[in-house]
């Protein structure tokens, strides 16, 4: 009699099929369909639909609006990742030490992560509102900043970075504090015996050992920042004008207001390619 294990080994496909089918249905099919759409001319307001090859990609890459949005995305991603990294690291190092009330402070630091980006966006939008917001109409003007944070083309970008950093720093904090807690304390003890200062401990022990976690955190944050839509949509709708229009907003706009489904799909595909290239470069350079 053939054992169950041996029969399973003969037909692995049978047992893997449910998982493969599920994966194909929820991941592969939408991705393949997106790719298919990106090769088609499909503008809702026009009757004809046909295979158009790389025409959509040509339109996208030849559009100044696309490159403007790509630049806006790059600024947002760089600023947001950098600030969340610095703040997340600082918080992780500070809250890795034992002190009274540490648990409460850690919980407070993690709290923004539990707030959906839409809610965070609305909160910051009201806070920064120049006419009625606590920050925008009261605190900032009293500090001499009279401009409207959300209506000024330059300050609007600063505003959404602040909101994003507030919302996502706790994510970086969680990754880094987990990594900090896994560092062998004997390394610090040995360093102290050798007379190392706190700064030297941080520079020569903590930071090098945190690099893999930092890279993983940055990759996650960068992917998240490239795809951020809800926060910006709620706070500025990509404005004023197109000052905070990132690629995800531009893609949505092309698909849902220009009704150009093919071009919208091409933008999404280009975003995926950008994200893959960026994360691959980042992980290969540092994690090899």
């Amino acid at each position, binding site marked *: 009699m053939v054992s169950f294990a041996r029969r399973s080994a003969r037909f692995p496909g049978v047992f893997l099929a449910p998982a493969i089918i599920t994966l194909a249905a929820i991941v592969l099919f939408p991705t393949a369909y997106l790719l298919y759409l990106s090769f088609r001319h499909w*503008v*809702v*307001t*026009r*009757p004809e639909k046909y295979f158009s090859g790389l025409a959509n990609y040509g339109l996208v890459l030849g559009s100044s*609006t696309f490159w403007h949005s790509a630049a806006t995305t790059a600024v947002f991603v760089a600023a947001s990742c950098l600030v969340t990294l610095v703040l997340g690291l600082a918080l992780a190092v500070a809250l890795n030490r034992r002190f009274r009330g540490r648990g409460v402070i850690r919980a407070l630091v993690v709290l923004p992560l539990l707030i959906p980006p839409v809610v965070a966006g609305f909160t910051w939008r009201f806070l920064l*509102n*120049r*006419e*009625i917001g606590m920050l*925008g*109409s009261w605190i900032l003007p009293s500090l001499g900043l*009279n*401009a*409207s944070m*959300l*209506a*000024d*083309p330059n300050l*609007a970008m600063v505003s959404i970075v602040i909101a994003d950093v507030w919302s996502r720093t706790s994510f970086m904090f969680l990754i880094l504090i987990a990594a900090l807690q896994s560092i062998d304390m004997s390394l610090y003890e040995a360093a102290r015996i050798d007379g190392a200062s706190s700064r030297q401990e941080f520079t020569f022990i903590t930071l090098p050992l945190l690099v893999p976690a930092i890279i993983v955190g940055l990759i996650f944050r960068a992917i998240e920042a490239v795809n951020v839509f809800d926060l910006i949509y709620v706070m*500025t*709708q*990509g*404005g*004023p*004008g*197109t*000052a905070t229009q990132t690629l995800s907003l531009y893609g949505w*706009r092309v698909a*849902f*207001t*220009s*009704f150009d*489904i093919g071009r919208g799909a091409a933008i999404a595909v280009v975003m995926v390619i950008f994200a893959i290239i960026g994360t691959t470069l980042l992980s290969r350079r540092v994690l090899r």
Partner: protein
Amino acid sequence: MGGSVDGTLAHNEFVTKQLHTDPAWKGFRLMSRSLRYLLAIVALAVIALGAAQTRINVISFSQGFAFPDLFGSSGTEKSDRLLAFEKENNIVVNMEWGDESAVRQKVLTDLISGTGRYDVILLGTDGAVQTYGYAGFLEPLNAYLESGDFDAWFDLEDIYPSIIEANTVEGNVYGMSYYAFGPGMVYRTDIFDRYDVEVPTTMVEFEAAMAKLKAGLAADGISDVYPLTMRAGPGEEPSLDVTGFVYAYAGYPAWFEGGAATVEDIKANKAQPDFTGAFRPGFEAFVRLAREYGPPGIATHTWVDMMNLYSQGKAVVLFPSAINAYAGIGSTELAEVRDNSAFAAVPVGPSGKQVQSFWSFSFGINAASRNKDDAMKVLALLTGHDALQAFADMTVWPAAPYASVMRSDTLINRYGEEEVLLNEEAMRDSETHYFPYIPELADFMFQIGTATSQAVSTGDVTRALADLQKWAVETMTAAGYYR
């Protein structure tokens, strides 16, 4: 109980034998068990389908505000009126609520995928009616309206012609209005009196009034009350108002050369976009007023911001989409706002024509709906005279598409006859086609609004219009208008 046990058994045996000799019964026994189950399921399904009510899916925004007579103040109840309608027509009305943007996107997704998930859909006359109408996504309502079957719901003589016009594309009526508004100016009478400002009748007077208000407020050290609130956020929102300015300054919808405003006109004359030409004076005036007299955050403001500022007493004039002031007056807690607000007709521009701002919150029928006749009955329930009267009674909004509702006691008692008639005039006399009716309208509205936001935030009108012109030429060329 009659009969013996033995007798019953004998009878059962007889019946069983008879059944076993019956050819039909033999055939049934020959079927496999699964086939029998399948047949039973099919039979049950057929019975269930026959007895089932038709489900009509409706999608809308304004939960709890719209249709209070049908879905209550929470938007989730079903009133006796609705239940009676459902019973009488063997229909289940399923209302799906959502945020306005989300609803618009759900409607679009449903229409382009042709699933017919929603039978009765939200439409606006600022792009959806035109774009979806031209694309064939909407069911024309003409036949229903002309059949006489819906006369009890819709009195076409009572509905303002402008409302029907705004919902009509190439002769096809695609939407029925729930509420609508024309242009207007709502202002604070107490502040006008304090600074001795007259109600302006021309745009020149309007700008002078704004300057006087600004100077007066500044002299009194008031820095958190702004002479004017308008909307200039990115996206389609400000376009209704900006293009209303353009119309008043140019005297026609100055989007394309020569004022071409239909597909046929644009194609026949190969009319190029004119955003850097005749479009500019009205656009520039809007931007100037917004920057000089509006609140600092105006480049991101939507109708909600206008409403909030007015209701909080932080704006003296709300213009030209006056309906947003009524929303603010209705919700304000400030007596000075509630008691000292008045409505005035909008000023005329240099062309002699009034600034425009017209919008209808309409509903239409999805062409992919599998139950169009029942969907029309639901549309009649939602937008018929009784629903609109109930809406006016509950919200006291002077925005009814029916003359009889506008002149009803509820509105007259609240606003007085003069103000109601001014509102009626604004709606009735609106030039609803003050922008072109073309398939690309929704896209243009979005771009114009975004250009407005850009110009208001940077002050660079030339750059914003140059970008808009370039985009418009590319779009119209790609759409095949100039072949």
